[in-house]
């Protein structure tokens, strides 16, 4: 494989590294790509921007040979190609950095990189040569990694560099990166963008899939915006703005209150304070006098592997405030939420909700106390996919009046409740009898939010409430959470999206390795300060 790819390298510099001309791809009745054309030239970063379901992944899967287009042509290095599998694309110098890393965790960095294309000597892997070639590549492209470390011991950012090296080792001239920043801290993201720019300086072309406008503006040379499978805009950062891109993506002006789009690459904090909607100001002033609804003291809990995940954590949330927990994923946020909601056993510490002791409470008891929980993983915890929208609208309250009486379900009450939720929360579904699985991600999430908001609650725990959903739904859910806060509900928001935490929170608690390392005011803190705290730097301003 390496030999075949080397011939590509030795060819004269192609004019177009990778292109799709008039790509159309249908899945049954759904047109995922409709006459889409894109072109990537050497040394450029092409950002593919679009909401979920806009057809970004379908397009790159066609370009990478995973899907065959129904119409249109793929061009690699100036040649029209009929790709029958990713092997054809890889052999032609196209590499993919997947969102979910395709690595073997216990194996070393070198072995992961050469896997499947190992240099051989006498039928054995030539480890010395493999190591040398990997080191050369890492030096050449400025991708520092320890070649002998086991991949599972590396931080996420370094694992991603291994993925990139894997593609470069196969002489990739084109890198397709699918949402590469989704799992990174702001610092790691900046580093990745530097690395990508370094690659382009050596003639590599990069296709960068994202829905984060800030990164597009910071890194892209060319921008292609997709909506509903069609190209709705081709532009460059110089010719556009984040607001204009957001409008292109969604197809209408977007108002997120917290202004995640008009803020520049820095200083969302200042943008928040200029968004002087009265509802944003009022709760802060009174927060000190409002009663504490959630009081966590010295909480400890273990993760699934039995490692301490939450470490003597203390936190309070008052009525009418949103406390945002910022942090890189995997620093105990999931375990914290599960321990509060009764899904995980706390090994030490206390949780009190509305002055009632909820330490060691079961999920049912937590619900009955008056807690709404938007779970992090909507497919695993939030919904039962095969259940109807109606059944899901009472999933954790089916036993309560008026949905049940004397152990019997009251279908009419459940159905009318579901119709209310669907109408109030704008859940797009043909009827309440449809299975939840037939809804789009955003509508599933609106169904969950609607369910949790329909009951009387004093505390809302929202874990990644807008993960993987489109901007329209994000806007809607943010507005609802703010409304609920203004009505006096205490909200604990846990999100890996720093932008979301900054946009919604009245206080930001930064979580690192199971502890709250700092509590900051989102109006005064900058992304950079919070990013450093998320990465484990010692706080300069004590909590």
């Amino acid at each position, binding site marked *: 494989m390496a030999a075949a790819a080397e011939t590509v390298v030795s060819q004269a510099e192609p004019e177009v590294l990778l292109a799709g001309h008039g790509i159309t791809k249908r*899945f049954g009745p759904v047109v995922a790509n409709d006459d889409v054309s894109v072109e990537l030239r050497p040394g450029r970063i092409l950002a593919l921007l679009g909401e979920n379901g806009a057809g*970004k992944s379908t397009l790159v899967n066609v370009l990478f040979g995973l899907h065959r287009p129904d119409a249109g042509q793929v061009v690699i290095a100036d040649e029209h190609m009929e790709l029958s599998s990713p092997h054809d694309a890889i052999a032609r110098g196209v590499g993919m950095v997947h969102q979910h890393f395709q690595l073997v965790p216990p194996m070393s960095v070198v072995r992961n990189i050469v896997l499947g294309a190992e240099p051989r000597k006498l039928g054995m892997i030539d480890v010395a040569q493999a190591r040398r070639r990997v080191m050369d590549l890492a030096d050449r492209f400025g991708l520092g990694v320890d070649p002998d470390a086991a991949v599972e011991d590396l931080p996420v950012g370094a694992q991603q560099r291994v993925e990139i090296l894997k593609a470069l080792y196969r002489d990739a001239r084109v890198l397709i990166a699918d949402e590469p920043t989704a799992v990174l801290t702001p610092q790691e993201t900046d580093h990745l963008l530097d690395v990508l720019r370094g690659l382009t300086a050596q003639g590599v072309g990069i296709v960068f899939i994202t829905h984060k406008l800030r990164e597009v503006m910071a890194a892209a040379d060319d921008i292609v915006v997709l909506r509903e499978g069609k190209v709705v805009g081709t532009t460059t950062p110089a010719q556009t703005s984040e607001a204009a891109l957001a409008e292109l993506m969604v197809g209408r002006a977007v108002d997120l209150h917290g202004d995640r789009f008009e803020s520049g690459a820095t200083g969302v904090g200042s943008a928040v304070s200029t968004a002087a909607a009265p509802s944003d100001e009022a709760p802060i002033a009174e927060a000190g006098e409002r009663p504490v609804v959630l009081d966590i003291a010295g909480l400890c809990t273990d993760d699934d592997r039995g490692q301490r995940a939450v470490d003597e954590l203390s936190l309070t949330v008052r009525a009418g405030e949103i406390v945002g927990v910022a942090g890189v994923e995997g620093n105990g946020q999931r375990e914290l939420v599960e321990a509060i909601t009764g899904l995980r056993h706390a090994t030490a510490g206390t949780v009190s909700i509305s002055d009632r002791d909820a330490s060691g409470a079961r*999920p049912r008891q937590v619900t009955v106390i008056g807690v709404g929980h938007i779970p992090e*993983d909507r497919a695993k915890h939030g919904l039962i996919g*095969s259940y109807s929208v109606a059944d899901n609208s009472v999933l954790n309250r089916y*036993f309560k009046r008026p949905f049940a009486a004397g152990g019997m379900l009251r279908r009419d009450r459940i159905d009318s409740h579901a119709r209310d939720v669907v109408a109030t929360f704008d859940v797009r579904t043909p009827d309440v009898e449809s*299975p939840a699985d037939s809804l789009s991600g955003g509508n599933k999430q609106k169904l969950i939010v609607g369910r949790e908001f329909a009951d009387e609650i004093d505390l809302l725990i929202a874990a990644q409430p807008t993960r993987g959903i489109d901007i329209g739904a994000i806007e809607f859910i943010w507005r609802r959470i703010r409304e609920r806060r203004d009505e006096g509900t205490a909200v604990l928001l846990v999100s890996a999206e720093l932008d979301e935490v900054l946009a919604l929170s009245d206080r930001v608690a930064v979580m690192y390795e199971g502890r709250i390392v700092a509590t900051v005011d989102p109006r005064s803190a900058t992304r950079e300060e919070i990013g450093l705290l998320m990465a484990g730097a010692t706080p300069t301003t004590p909590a």
Partner: protein
Amino acid sequence: MTRTVLRAAAVPLASVVLGLVLGAALIAVQGHSVTTAYGALVLGGAGDADALLRTLQKATPLVFGGLAVAFAFKAGLFNIGGQGQLLVGAAFAAGVGFGLEGVPLVVHLPLALLVGAAAGAAWGAIAGVLKATSGAHEVIVTIMLNFVAGNLTDWLAANPWQDRSGSNIIARTPLVKPSAEIPTWGWLPAGFVLAALAAFACWFVLERTTYGFEVRSVGANRHAARYAGISVGWIMASTMAVAGLLAGLGGAIESLGVDGRFEAGVNVGLGFEGITIALLARTNPIAVIPAGLLVGLMEAGAAKMQFESGVAPEIIDVIQALILLFVAAPLIVRWLLRLRDTDDRRLTLGAGWGR
């Protein structure tokens, strides 16, 4: 409504037809007349009141066994233990049936049924409790408990409860007292009425009660069920107990309504056929009734078929196995019949695009 029912029933119905067609081919290859054989099969199973009675009696434990599998399946549990649960139900019901004397029918019969059902429930609950507390896999545990139940009931029938009358040396209990016998009204055995009622009761519990909601939630998504505040362990344990209760009731009716006693080795295999029935019914409790009737009819008519056409009755087992194969491998049937996939499947296939 009719459309959804038809769509759900398409694969099982097609499987039955395919099984019968292949069965016909096997009969023809042996040089027998297919029409004579199948004609005799139907006449032997439904030709007259006696035939109908035989079919309904055969179908009764099949329906109960099918329910025992189908109900557990709703909670995501695969109950292979119908056999063991049925055996303890049969043995203990017989024990009460012959052991008590001078009790009126209104007390004796319900008591015997209840004890049989309770024995089955306890037997099923063992596997459920172990699953809930230690994670022991219910398939393994119920298989092993089948052997324990088989040996336990054999021992009961051969030792403390053995019929000592005359020169009996067979491992069986005495006949149950008339006050514990399940009546038969003409061609209709009361036991079958109970089986049909049980099927409707299962449907009602699963679809209309909060408990059924919990059972189905645990089966459909255990994690979401926990999130919803459902005690997954309790549901697993109690569901297995209900499954055992159903199988045990089937066994009790065998002893009290058909055999008149419990005899070692007589009921072997009945519990396993419940798996066939449940799969054929696609675990729908109501559909268990026709599935049980179909298999019951084939078993009831097999003797007449052999008598009139010379076809070995084992052909029935082959046909049943073929039907099960087709039901378990619906892709074959869909391909053969060019059936469209259900909406759900298409959604699953299409879910990968555009993320």
